[in-house]
């Protein structure tokens, strides 16, 4: 638990930083409320269409691949801390695990799933 003290201190400082910067600029800064300020601005032209555009499915695909390889990377943590204790057995074990996932990576690579056209 004591090794997490730096994390806690960093957390407190980051919260303080965010609160101070937003709070101070709120207190010191000039405030002006008028209806024209809330209007969307498009180079003087009346805005057309909805502001909410639909995102491409490609973003979603990248997010899913990130999630899956993220889980793979997560398994490396407990493996790394007891690597010496496991020895060669652990190496082979993790090697097979990674190889199966590299097959998946090669599959989407060869199929063009990573191409951003």
């Amino acid at each position, binding site marked *: 638990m004591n090794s997490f003290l730096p994390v806690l201190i960093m957390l407190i400082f980051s919260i303080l930083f965010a609160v101070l910067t937003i709070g101070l600029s709120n207190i010191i800064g000039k405030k002006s409320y008028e209806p024209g300020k809330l209007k969307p601005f498009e180079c003087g032209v009346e805005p057309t269409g909805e502001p909410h555009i639909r995102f491409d499915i490609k973003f*979603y695909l990248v997010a899913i691949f990130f999630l899956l390889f993220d889980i793979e990377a997560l398994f490396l943590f*407990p493996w790394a801390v007891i690597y010496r204790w496991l020895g060669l057995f652990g190496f082979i074990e993790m090697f097979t695990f990674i190889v199966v996932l590299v097959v998946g990576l090669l599959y989407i690579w060869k199929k063009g799933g990573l191409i951003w056209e």
Partner: protein
Amino acid sequence: MEILFYIFSILIIYSSIMVVASKSPLTSALYLILSFFVLAGFYVILDMQFIAAMQILVYAGAIMVLVVLVIMLLNLEKYKNIKTDMHQKFISGLIFMVLFVEIALFILTGAGRKPTGIFTSEVIKRVGNTQVIGEFLFTKYIFPFEISSILLLVAIIGAYLFAKKRF
């Protein structure tokens, strides 16, 4: 330690209420990220460093990326004025009651229980939570671990095929 627990509790209750109460789906997603982070803080207090790292990496990182992307993929402008009816409130109230009773029963009967066997709380504290998980995962439960790689492979190929059919 006590004070941290109370701060985290207040934060997680506040953020969880805001997940349900906020109007914009993106705002509630951000509050959900906050509650996941606070949950990681609880795991650190309980000396479960690996699960805390998992919570931040997988839930606050990856799963929330998916949730936010789904919110952005769907055009939610149309659904802004949908009213919730009593039917939904009744079902959510029922689920809330069941969960409340379950947690209350757990606290009343089994809260004082400690892990039994060779891995008691003291041993886990001495050896380290991550080490214990690794020790089991890479010796006793090696087969499920290797199978999980196949599962991830299937998920990779499946995700590719589902998304690729669209364009």
